[in-house]
């Protein structure tokens, strides 16, 4: 995937004469020192990252860690003290005001924590705001706004005022406003933080749903690691203006870079972070036509498992259990087909662990299938629970 946004060694120092603070910072002085000496606050210190097209890049950190500052530098609301922000070849940090405005109008839009809807404009007018600013005629504007509202399921509220809507609806309007100009990049600064937990959940699902079709490049800010893990293709953990770790959800949870990150990963919901992929074993199976019950029992004994999948050519025919087969052997020592269980649990590699709970309870191993429905791996039921329990011990 091509890189859409590339941030290189970006710094932000709040206060007069930021180069002085910058100098001190490069000489290895602490932020506290710099504040004492110059009264300047270090907002962001040497952050670098690339965001690939169509990805959700999540920046997670506690309040005051510099997330808002970082995201506001990407659309030039805050001017960086040093560094580059390259969007499709333009350096936002140094381009002309007119070029910057052009980028904001056409390429990058933003969704805000407290929605920032204009209280004197209707929902449709809010959504059409960016289009009006661009000088689009009223009719076309309205049509595009209605389309954007349809994406978030709010066409019926087009002529309401924002204060007539619930928080969740208001943020949907905020999202529609961000989408209306069809930007390639969406900046979202804690868009769901002001919402109730249940509504937040819905909004996360909805964002993922939208993203499946829209494939925007999204930079998403949050202070909630669970949210970061659910949404992010890539996640950066930020602390005191610095990036302490960048990686996928699994990388961060499996290998926290330091105690700070580990402390966060402790209370997260691992069942949503890890996928079937992390617990899947090899696609061990026997063939329906060529293997006998005896072979199958030998294979299970060798693998230490108590069930095995049976393939008919490439197709999964079902599974057989050790217990059934030994009973079968005692009776007549015959073909696999008579012990075949065709109602077997199956999942994809991307299925989150929490969806495997109920599948694992059947006692049969879970078949991991690929897109064509072929056997791609097998998950032992114990492995699911071990993964969830084992991590708690590890942390």
């Amino acid at each position: 995937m091509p890189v859409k946004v590339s941030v290189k060694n970006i710094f932000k120092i709040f206060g007069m004469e930021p180069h002085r603070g910058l100098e001190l910072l490069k000489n290895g002085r602490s932020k506290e020192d710099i504040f004492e000496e110059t009264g300047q606050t270090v907002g962001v210190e040497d952050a670098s990252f690339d965001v690939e097209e169509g990805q959700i890049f999540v920046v997670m950190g506690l309040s005051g860690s510099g997330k808002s500052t970082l995201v506001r530098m990407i659309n030039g609301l805050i001017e960086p003290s040093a560094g580059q922000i390259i969007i499709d070849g333009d350096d936002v940090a140094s381009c002309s005001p007119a070029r910057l405005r052009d980028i904001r109008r056409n390429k990058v839009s933003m969704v805000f924590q407290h929605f920032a809807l204009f209280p004197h404009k209707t929902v449709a007018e809010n959504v059409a705001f960016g289009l009006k600013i661009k000088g689009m005629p009223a009719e076309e504007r309205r049509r595009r706004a209605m389309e954007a509202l349809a994406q978030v399921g709010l066409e019926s509220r087009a002529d309401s005022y924002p204060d007539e809507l619930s928080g969740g609806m208001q943020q949907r309007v905020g999202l529609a406003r961000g989408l209306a100009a069809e930007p390639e990049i969406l900046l979202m600064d804690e868009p769901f933080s002001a919402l109730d937990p249940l509504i937040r959940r819905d909004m996360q699902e909805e964002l993922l749903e939208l993203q499946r079709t829209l494939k925007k490049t999204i930079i998403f800010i949050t202070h909630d690691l669970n949210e970061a893990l659910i949404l992010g293709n890539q996640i950066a953990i930020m602390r005191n203006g610095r990036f302490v770790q960048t990686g996928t959800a699994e990388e961060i949870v499996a290998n926290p870079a330091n105690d700070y990150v580990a402390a966060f990963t402790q209370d997260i919901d691992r069942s949503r972070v890890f996928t079937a992929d992390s617990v899947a074993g090899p696609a061990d199976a026997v063939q329906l036509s060529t293997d006998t019950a005896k072979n199958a029992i030998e294979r299970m004994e060798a693998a230490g498992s108590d069930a095995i999948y049976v393939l008919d050519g490439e197709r999964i025919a079902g599974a057989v259990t050790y217990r059934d087969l030994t009973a079968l052997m005692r009776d007549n020592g015959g073909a696999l087909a008579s012990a075949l269980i065709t109602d077997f649990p199956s999942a994809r590699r991307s299925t989150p662990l929490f969806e495997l709970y109920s599948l694992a309870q059947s006692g049969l191993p879970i078949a991991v299938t690929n897109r064509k429905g072929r056997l791609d791996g097998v998950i032992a039921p114990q492995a699911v629970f071990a993964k969830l329990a084992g991590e708690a011990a590890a942390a």
Partner: protein
Amino acid sequence: MVSPSDFLTIPLDDWVNFFVKDWLVPNFRPAFRAMQWPITQVLNTLDGVLNAIPMVLFTVGLSLIAWRTAGRGVAIFTLFALAFIDMIGLWPETMTTLSMVVTAVFFCTVIGIPLGIAAAASDRFQAALRPVLDIMQTIPSFVYLVPIVMLFGVGMVPGIIATIIFALPPIIRLTNLGIRNVRGDLVEAATAFGATAWQTLWEVQFPLALRTVMAGLNQTLMLALSMVVIAALIGAGGLGLTVYTGLGRLDVGNATAGGIGIVLLAIVLDRMTQGLGEKRSVRTVSLAATLKSLFSPRAVSSGQTERAS
């Protein structure tokens, strides 16, 4: 006793005399005279229109406007107030005063709103403007009547100029305040969608400040009305003149009638402009909240990035 004046006396009065009489007046009188031109035009037009409209038509019209802007009660009050003014024989004077006051307020708006906007946009301009406004509001208006007469002569227009100076500060202050109090994240959102400073002002800041601006307009209007008697001192006509001559001749009846006329006019205009402010911007920051922020120690500033996450 020794006092500083034994050592040094400052002839301030002479200096001012010299400055105004020997420098300002001879050098700039034509310029000041030229400044009267637009005011004269507006005043004459307005005066012509107001005096051409028959009393009954005007009364009904204004009552209807009051009904639309401020409700039925105010409309009924307007109807009776204007009828009463006509019955006490002060209709022409009232129309003269009205055209004078409206002219003054018109110029206050034209000058004051841009200045208020500029003050909201620039901290430095605000800092420079504030002492000027403070002086304008504290100097007794009698003090500048003399230079005004010297520069502009006497009559209706100099009276209006004195009124403008007196009534200008509130609309500047409240325009500035209203714009500064617009939520910072809304301004930021406008910028983030690529709005220019003008677009942000026109689409977001000014509409959201409108309720506060209207409150400023209302105050300006009230101050302008309170100047009509003083303006009569330098030759302005209307109800102010009625009161003033009543005062000079110890004609209590006439002075009272003029005074009642002014009060009735003030109540009608006050209620109407207040109604306008309430109606136009139901969804903006309430005036109470705005005024409260005046006294809160932490100045609310726009444009700042919100810090809380």
